[in-house]
């Protein structure tokens, strides 16, 4: 028996034995019984705050807040209260949260203040996407189907964050069942882009919309999302954040309501590369409840990777070749991005081709191979409650129509596509720019979304880089170097104007627009 097989067997055996001893089901349940050990946070996780940020704790990055808490300049209670104050004032406009756990967060902060320091996430308030199970707290995936679902346990990723000291501030609005931007299950737009709070039509990115708006609007330090078809990188790009979608298997999916099980990637939406590194360090690790997490390479020191080195005052990046796909530099922000990267010591640009049959193998039809993964786990709901799917229904019915032959052809095509990406793209580069998150979502490869500018209307513009399997550290090192020489990531949106707040106070709900079932079918992740 190989080392890998033996390890997986032992893990499985231990989990089954433990379940049998308690009379529970033989399958490991998501209960935070992870075995990945305590995450290692290197000293770079603590960053002395910018002087101007100390006046308002909600302005602090995670790494800055971690430093302030560690050295007694800030208490977890002060941080939680600052966020609750902003939520109370501004969330009626933003509508980023569907549940705010004020009492629990206050109690957790008070306990953290009394407890021995546990690491950079000690006392840090987070926003959790509402498809992550939270023990005793309603978890809806923003669907009628789960409107009364109160999980018995935390998702493993949530359990890991809490074990590292984090505080769950609330559950965030999301696209119904993680399909689109956040709306109600019947398609009414809820959450707005924090940069244009009075213009609901501005895309806030989906489906991790509420997490993005809560972090961008300074209502949480950082947060969690899931990505099946761009749902971490798109809202990060839309709202000036740094979002990291790890390689499939890096973070356990146990206790996350599924959308497409080969493509659902849990990961952080954060304020910069360093914060994303801290979050992923806590979230990642082996989990007996999710075999996809087992037997993988160890997690590199992401925090070190996200800490740029300086030589004589100039940033020096890890030697990295950035691949540029044909036709990428079509806009001024993208041209400026490439010029800036090229000027960083250690980074070089290299033209790379689109792999053979790229448009076909990453296009709509082959992307739709994911849809049976949507219908199969939902069969009990499809038989009894079609209207319970609201505007999201069509994709689930499409999945039920795709035959096994076509599904298998799609799985063969995925390996073909991966081999072409590895042979034709990563043969000559280490990371590559992306024009869409979908191809690397199909393949389970890591991606990072980060800010690179603004439109004339003041809406953030972002970029996405992708890497080979398990090379999240490569992505973080490039973005950290870029963020060391740019300031886009430091910019925060203005608070919603007073008239918008007054209008929200006067009406229980307003008309922000509505997506139809047909529009959802076109836009679904």
């Amino acid at each position: 028996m190989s080392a890998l097989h033996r390890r997986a067997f032992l893990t499985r055996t231990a989990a089954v034995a433990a379940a049998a001893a308690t009379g529970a089901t033989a399958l490991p349940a998501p209960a935070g019984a992870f075995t990945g050990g305590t995450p290692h946070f290197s000293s770079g996780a603590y960053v002395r705050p910018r002087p101007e940020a100390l006046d308002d704790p909600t302005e602090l990055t995670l790494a800055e807040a971690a430093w302030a808490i560690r050295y007694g300049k800030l208490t977890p209670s002060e941080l939680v209260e600052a966020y609750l104050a902003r939520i109370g004032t501004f969330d009626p406009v933003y509508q980023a949260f569907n549940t705010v756990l004020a009492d629990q967060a206050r109690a957790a902060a008070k306990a953290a203040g009394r407890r021995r320091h546990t690491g950079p996430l000690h006392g840090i308030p987070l926003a959790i996407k509402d498809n992550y199970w939270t023990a005793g707290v309603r978890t809806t995936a923003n669907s009628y189907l789960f409107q009364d679902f109160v999980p018995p346990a935390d998702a493993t990723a949530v359990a890991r964050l809490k074990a590292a000291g984090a505080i769950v501030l609330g559950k965030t609005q999301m696209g119904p069942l993680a399909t689109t931007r956040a709306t109600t299950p019947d398609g009414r737009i809820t959450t707005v882009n924090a940069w244009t709070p009075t213009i609901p039509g501005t895309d806030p990115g989906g489906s991790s919309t509420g997490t993005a708006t809560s972090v961008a609007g300074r209502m949480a330090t950082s947060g969690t999302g899931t990505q099946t078809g761009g749902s971490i990188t798109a809202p990060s790009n839309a709202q000036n954040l740094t979002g990291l979608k790890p390689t499939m298997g890096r973070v356990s999916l146990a206790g996350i309501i599924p959308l497409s099980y080969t493509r659902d990637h849990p990961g952080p939406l954060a304020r910069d590369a360093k914060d994303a590194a801290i979050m992923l360090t806590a979230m990642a690790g082996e989990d007996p409840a999710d075999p996809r997490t087992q037997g993988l390479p160890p997690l590199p020191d992401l925090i070190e990777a996200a800490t740029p080195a300086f030589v004589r005052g100039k940033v020096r990046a890890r030697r990295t070749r950035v691949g540029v796909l044909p036709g990428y530099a079509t806009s001024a922000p993208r041209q400026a991005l490439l010029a800036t990267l090229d000027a960083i010591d250690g980074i070089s640009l290299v033209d790379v081709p689109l792999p053979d049959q790229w448009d076909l193998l990453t296009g709509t039809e082959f992307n739709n191979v994911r849809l049976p993964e949507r219908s199969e786990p939902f069969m009990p709901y499809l038989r009894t409650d079609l209207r319970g799917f609201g505007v999201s229904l069509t994709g689930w019915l499409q999945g039920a129509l795709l035959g096994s032959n076509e599904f298998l052809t799609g799985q063969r095509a995925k390996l073909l596509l991966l081999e072409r990406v590895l042979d034709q793209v990563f043969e000559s580069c280490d990371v590559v720019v992306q024009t869409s998150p979908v191809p690397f979502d199909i393949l389970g490869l890591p991606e990072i979304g980060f800010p690179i500018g603004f439109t004339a209307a003041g809406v953030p513009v972002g970029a996405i880089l992708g890497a080979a399997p398990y090379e999240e550290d490569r992505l973080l090192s490039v973005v950290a170097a870029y963020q060391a020489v740019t300031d886009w990531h430091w910019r925060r949106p203005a608070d919603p104007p007073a008239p918008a707040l007054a209008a929200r106070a006067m009406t229980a709900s307003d008309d922000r627009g509505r997506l139809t079932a047909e529009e959802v079918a076109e836009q679904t992740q």
Partner: protein
Amino acid sequence: MAVTPPTDAELDTMIRARLASLGIDLSQLPPGTAADPVTGSPGQASVLASLRSFVRGSVTTLAAFQLPAPAGTDPAHAAAYSQQPAPMLYPSISTEWRR
């Protein structure tokens, strides 16, 4: 001999029958094209139109795809070569045990 593409009516029958065989009854949805006013779920006619389009597009394209043979392969052997590539649910994870 080329197969005659199915008509809308034939596809509707196939779609309803396929879903019914799985225990899914489209008549749970409102008749016609109007969405359910309470949940926003699509009407039967609307969803059937979308599903017909899906069958004609995605199902047909995937079914027609043949995995490529190595360059220079005798065309007479192309079908045999197309049987060889392995399907892979998790391509990125597979790289670890294929090292």
